[in-house]
């Protein structure tokens, strides 16, 4: 198989993308159905060719074709096959190809699942997606061809995949993350299409919503996987570093969450349309900004790909064209006439507006914190480092405020909620939350302000969510009936909010009650961390597939009983000679015990890092809940509509229908 087939496939995909950007769009503006009809086949074709390119590159990795420069730089014959597979996206060119594959995939998905949309809308959405594809395909074909050859000097073996990346995390984290990043392109395309054809209404919001929700769910998963991976891989027990690349993934997530909630208001009440469109554009722009930051070398990060000014400039150009064109379109075409609607001070609309204020403020905070050093450098005002201490201090109050707002907002009603009624309704949840929080704090042994606020906000959200579920599921036919009657969309919301509470309480508890010790140990020593004892049994050498390691054995004891045996390692990789610390963790739902080998102090003695991390797994468990909530919510609409369509089909084959009441999306 010649790698050149991959290159040709990409060029063909580019041609199809160009056609996709132009033909259906022209058709939609000129009212030509035959041109609009090209949108679906062009989308399929584009996906097929990108898929071929991806398959060719994967094949090159799996057969160790080191005549391809990218394979030679990122792989090695000693690499296990599953890492050869994930090495496809281990570097810039390949991960870009993965990005484009996802983009083509989402385009195809829109083409398939858009039967219910008016043709004009479908054509324009697909054309906009086509334009985004053109940009990225140009980028990869011109500056970042993964199929460049090393001929005539084919190396005997590859340079090996960075040991940090030789891990399960690489197999799952980038694909999930990119599904999310790229998925927001769909919401973006819907927004642009709405600005082009001027049809910005509740129906538009209803179509955009599931696409936004599922992209958000993937992004939540992707970010959580990244955090989990960094935690066990990097050897120091941290789960979030406020690194510029991490922030780059958080920005579209925060903005995307605001977008999801804003779409709900626009769909239900037809208001805030202009704002929602802006959010859709901003969210995808932030995805693009993230892609740029990672690949341009403009900011220092543990995650960045190798910096290349030419690529950085091209990508910035791509980013600039997309963002400026869409924001200009927004500025000229967004409606200024507002829907006249009344809403009370405690209405659901207002609560969701406040939710947006907090989320957008958080987005602005993270963006400013990340880019500020660049701005100062540009103005030649010197260097500045902005990291964890800053972000933790400024982000936490916003998170707590969002939690408090959520709990109260759950009970709010559309259009008007009586303030007094709401206040009285919140009294019991307030009391219960305070008691539970106090119990948790006592259980973990100590009061600090942040621990109290964080735990309280989480408990508050949980209590309010269940209280509301209890209220809504009351029915004359019994509780079970009432529960079954709630829509999947509602349960999606419940799961999503519970997920947030779980993540928040995990973050709060592990940050405030975690214990960390750096101790000097020789084999035979026993150290304590929290209630646990860790005994250093022995340390020896071990040979791995492509490394040699110092292999330690540690017993973890609780009240004298052994609960786990841990084997942290210090590995030296054969190719590249890099040294890596592999921590070992005794994982549990209520706590992790984390042991890592540090430096060698003397022949016998080692610096050992021990950590007790309560509830750390809840961080990621919460994200699972959030993602599950997202997936559940989109299962709602489709089911209903298909069912109604089936019922209609059935009814029409039997008896002429006598008007049945149609419910267009009930409750939440």
């Amino acid at each position, binding site marked *: 198989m010649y790698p050149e087939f991959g290159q040709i496939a990409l060029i063909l995909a580019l041609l199809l993308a160009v056609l996709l950007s132009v033909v259906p769009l022209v058709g939609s503006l000129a009212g030509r159905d035959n041109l609009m009809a090209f949108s679906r086949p062009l989308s399929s074709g584009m996906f097929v060719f990108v898929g071929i390119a991806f398959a060719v590159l994967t094949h090159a990795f799996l057969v160790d074709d080191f005549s391809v420069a990218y394979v030679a730089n990122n792989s090695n014959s000693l690499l296990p096959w599953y890492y050869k597979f994930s090495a496809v996206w281990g570097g810039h060119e390949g991960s870009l190809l993965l990005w484009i594959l996802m983009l083509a995939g989402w385009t195809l998905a829109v083409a398939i699942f858009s039967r219910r949309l008016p043709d004009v809308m479908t054509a324009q959405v697909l054309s906009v997606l086509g334009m985004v594809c053109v940009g990225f395909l140009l980028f990869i074909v011109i500056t970042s061809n993964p199929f460049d050859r090393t001929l005539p000097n084919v190396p005997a073996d590859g340079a090996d995949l960075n040991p940090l990346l030789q891990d399960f995390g690489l197999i799952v984290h980038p694909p999930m993350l990119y599904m999310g990043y790229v998925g927001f392109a769909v919401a973006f395309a819907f927004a642009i299409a709405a600005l082009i054809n001027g049809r910005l209404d509740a129906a538009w919001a209803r179509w955009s919503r599931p696409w936004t929700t599922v992209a958000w769910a993937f992004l939540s998963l992707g970010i959580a996987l990244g955090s989990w991976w960094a935690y066990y891989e990097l050897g120091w027990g941290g789960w979030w570093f406020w690194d510029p690349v991490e922030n780059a993934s958080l920005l579209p997530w925060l903005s995307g969450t605001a977008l999801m909630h804003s779409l709900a208001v626009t769909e239900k009440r037809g208001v805030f349309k202009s704002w929602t469109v802006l959010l859709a554009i901003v969210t995808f*722009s932030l995805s693009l900004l993230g892609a740029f930051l990672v690949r*341009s070398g403009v900011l220092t990060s543990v995650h960045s790909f190798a*910096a290349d000014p030419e690529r950085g400039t091209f990508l910035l150009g791509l980013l600039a064209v997309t*963002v*400026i064109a869409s924001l200009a379109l927004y*500025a000229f075409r967004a409606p*200024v006439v507002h829907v006249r609607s009344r809403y009370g001070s405690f209405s659901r609309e207002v609560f969701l507006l406040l939710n947006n204020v907090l989320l957008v403020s958080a987005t602005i905070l993270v963006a400013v914190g990340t880019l500020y050093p*660049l701005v100062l*450098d540009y103005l030649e005002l010197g260097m500045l480092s902005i990291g964890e201490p800053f972000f933790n201090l400024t982000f936490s109050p916003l998170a707590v405020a969002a939690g408090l707002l959520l709990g109260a907002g759950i009970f709010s009603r559309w259009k008007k909620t009586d303030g007094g009624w709401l206040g009285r309704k919140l009294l019991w949840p307030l009391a219960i939350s305070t008691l539970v929080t106090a119990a948790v704090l006592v259980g973990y042994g100590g009061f600090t302000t942040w621990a109290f606020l964080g735990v309280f906000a989480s408990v508050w959200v949980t209590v309010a969510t269940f209280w509301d579920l209890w209220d809504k599921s009351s029915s004359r036919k019994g509780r079970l009936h009432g529960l079954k009657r709630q829509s999947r969309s509602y349960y999606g919301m419940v799961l999503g909010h519970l997920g947030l509470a779980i993540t928040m309480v995990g973050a709060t508890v592990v940050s405030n009650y975690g214990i960390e010790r750096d101790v000097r140990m020789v084999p035979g020593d026993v150290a304590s961390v929290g209630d646990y004892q860790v005994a250093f049994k022995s340390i020896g050498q071990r040979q791995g597939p492509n490394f040699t390691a110092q292999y330690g054995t540690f017993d973890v004891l609780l009240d004298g009983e052994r609960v786990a045996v841990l084997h942290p390692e210090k590995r030296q990789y054969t190719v590249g000679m890099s040294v890596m610390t592999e921590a070992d963790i005794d994982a549990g739902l209520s706590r992790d015990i984390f042991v890592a080998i540090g430096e060698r102090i003397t022949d016998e003695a080692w610096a050992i890092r021990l950590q007790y991390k309560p509830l750390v797994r809840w961080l990621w468990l919460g994200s699972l809940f959030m993602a599950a909530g997202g997936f559940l919510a989109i299962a709602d609409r489709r089911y209903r509509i298909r069912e109604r369509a089936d019922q209609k089909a059935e009814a029409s084959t039997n008896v002429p229908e006598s008007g049945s009441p149609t419910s267009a999306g009930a409750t939440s």
Partner: protein
Amino acid sequence: MKRFLLFLPLLIAIVVGIVLFAGIGKDPTKLESALVGKPVPAFSLRDLHNPDTMLDQSLFQGQVSLLNVWGTWCPACKDEHDDLMWLAEEKGVNIIGLNYKDNREDALVWLDRLGDPYRKTIYDPRGTLGFDLGVYGAPETFVIDAGGVVRYRHVGVVNETVWEQTLLPVINDVRGNG
């Protein structure tokens, strides 16, 4: 007014774009020295070649010097060594060496094999002077004026391009100002 507000995001995006564009190509890992404009920190360390002789900051008085931080454990230092020899021999540049976190024997063997471009070499096995100078990785080269004040720090290898475009202008500037 309303329409103007809608243009605000666009304006912000353009400003951000300009800032980002300016950042491309700059290497964020190269830090400016905090010691520019300050005198070389006081130190008292042994001479690499003559362990009985102590060297101190007066070494930098009287003429402009380059202070080159190196170690035998640093592969890039080996790369730049030929260029340093060229600077010392062909260009007559006064280079003082700082042997940073190294082993005396290894360092002497190295200089013997590759040549010694340094007028004097300071032996700093524990890296104390390096630390005071804000050295965070080798190789690094400082430009120090005749009064013993640090004027510039270059992070990374010194080669002909670096000499001509970076170091020489600073030295001329320093000399020009007396």
